[in-house]
């Protein structure tokens, strides 16, 4: 903690979000690899010497892969739903892209230049920068598409059942079940790229800014010397003397002096 002595701790992510973030990590990992296997199976044949009679018992049987895929699919779906539900009552869990704010558009430019390592006069600290906000929102859209296409295929085990009746129009909307398979497969690859970049960005941020980016998904806390520019997304308050759409980009104002954490910091 030594490293953070000159910084204030901000509780950003609820325990609820942190739990479901990690269940999603685990289920997506399982889904991606078993999904690749389902798309192009063949370990049984590669490992060779398979007695057809006993192949079904193998860990690399299609049956097992599909079973893991379906279990993980259900876990992901419920994590997805719970995580979104949690965002309703916790501000820190819904750091969405706010397209109606000027700050969002300014942040897009600023963060892009930041990652291109082009020096800028003023760089701000963010609870979550505009690029990250956009990427997370996009990933949730992709999650939704994967869940819908996944369950559409799953439902067709019993086409005249309840799920089958619900998803039949979805399938015909996408141009048939074959296309649903293809769409599901294409989107799956997007998660790999997201993961690579997401993990890199989190580690980079942690090293560069020392804001506890990586541990924040375990402890829920981030560390800043001053209030980040988008702090109102967390505390719901506008910073004094400032209009939301026109933040001052030159000076940081001190945060709310009535905040007990602030007092503690000053006492020290």
């Amino acid at each position, binding site marked *: 903690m030594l490293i953070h002595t000159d910084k204030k701790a901000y509780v950003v992510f609820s325990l609820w979000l942190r739990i479901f973030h990690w269940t999603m990590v685990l289920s997506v990992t399982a889904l991606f690899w078993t999904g*690749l296997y389902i*798309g*192009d*199976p*063949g*370990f*049984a*044949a590669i490992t060779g010497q*398979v007695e*057809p009679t006993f*192949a*079904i018992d*193998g860990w*690399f*049987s*299609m*049956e097992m*892969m599909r079973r893991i895929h379906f279990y993980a699919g259900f876990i992901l779906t419920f994590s997805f739903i719970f995580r979104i539900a949690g965002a309703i009552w916790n501000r820190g869990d819904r750091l969405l892209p706010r397209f109606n704010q000027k700050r969002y558009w300014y942040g897009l430019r600023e963060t892009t230049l930041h*990652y291109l*390592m082009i020096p800028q006069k003023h760089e701000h600290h963010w609870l979550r920068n505009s690029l990250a906000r956009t990427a997370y929102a996009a990933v949730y859209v992709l999650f939704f598409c994967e869940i819908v296409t996944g369950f559409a295929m799953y439902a*067709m*085990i019993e*086409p*005249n059942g309840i799920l*089958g*009746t619900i998803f*039949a*129009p979805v399938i*015909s909307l996408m*141009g*048939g*079940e*074959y*296309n649903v*398979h*293809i769409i599901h*497969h*294409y989107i799956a*690859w997007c998660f*790999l*790229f997201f993961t*690579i*970049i997401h993990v*890199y960005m989190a580690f*980079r941020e942690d090293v*560069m800014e020392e804001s506890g980016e990586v541990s924040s998904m375990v402890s829920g806390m981030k560390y800043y010397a001053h209030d980040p520019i988008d702090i109102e997304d967390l505390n719901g308050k506008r910073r004094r003397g400032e209009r939301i759409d026109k933040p001052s980009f030159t000076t940081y104002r001190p945060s709310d002096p009535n905040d007990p954490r602030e007092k503690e910091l000053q006492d020290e």
Partner: protein
Amino acid sequence: MKNRVNSLWTLFQERRLSRRTFMKSCIALTAILGLPPTMLDSVVKAAETTELPTVIWLHGHECTGCSEAFIRSSSPFTSDVILNMISLEYDDTLAAASGEPLEEHLHKIITEKSGKYILAVEGGVPLDDDGVYCTVGGRTFKESLKECAKGAAAIIEYGSCASWGGIQAAKPNPTNTVSVSSVVSGKPIIKVPGCPPIPEVMTGVVMHYALFGQIPPLDSQGRPKQFYGNRIHDTCYRRAFFDSGLFVEKFDDDASKAGWCLYKVGCRGPQTYNSCGNLRWWNGLSYPIQSGHGCIGCSEKGFWDNDVFYKRLPDIPLANTITTADTVGTVAAFTATGAVIVHGAATLARNKYNDIQEEKRLKEQGLWDEAKHNNGGRH
């Protein structure tokens, strides 16, 4: 005869066939229609009392393959169906008569039996240039279809052409061929897709209507549930190999000789709804997968555009692209990893450079020791 209903039972009586034979036929019919044994009572009742229907069979934009399949139905025999069980009044490929007399007969029937006949349609409807790409008897198919559909009690779309547009509707669909149901509306329509449909399914659907006077229960896409209620994949006898992970890799390998699953060589069974797996073809003799060839999904909407039929994952549908999503994905993932490493290295290098510059600046100003101290020795 005139006072009696022209039912199946009357037909048996005329032929001096016993009640026992009639009952046996009814049991067979129940099974063929895909109905549970408990429905036998209704089948018998219907066979005794329902008048056998008039059928008009039109041919549109198609290859007549569905007729070829239809005439090979073996239970019931097609000859029995068209000579005894239904009254097939018009079919330009099967009729002995031809030319103007046949066309005149068609007009007579659609006027006399208006609202009572079944219209069976084989083939899609080309719409471009006012439908000139398919003409029968000098009139466009679009025109004659609309005329015949007006008085039809129900319409059966036989084959993938009538049901979905068919192979002539493949991209870019030069004649703008569409399904029958996109031209005709307001009538009960039964889709019997397949290229061609299974013969017994074709006769089964028309017999269902003939016996019960109503269309069979349909699924969300308008196909009879009893024949299109299952994926071929879920009824396939090779499914056990799929579950075990035993796959044919090439068409001439040992696995293909052993009869393993054809999933990896592009079988469309997992996305195709038909009775091939349980009814099979030619009196239960075989079906494509049993013959060692993957299903091409011929009863599915748009199957003609889902090529290549011998690959599980098709090439990315862009011009001049012969690569799959998996290849692109793998390459892109490695590229992304590489890019991330480069970016990380560049970040560290830039930071190091900045530090050196800062140190230099501070040293020049003589503030270096102070700054070091303020930082708690950390730099």
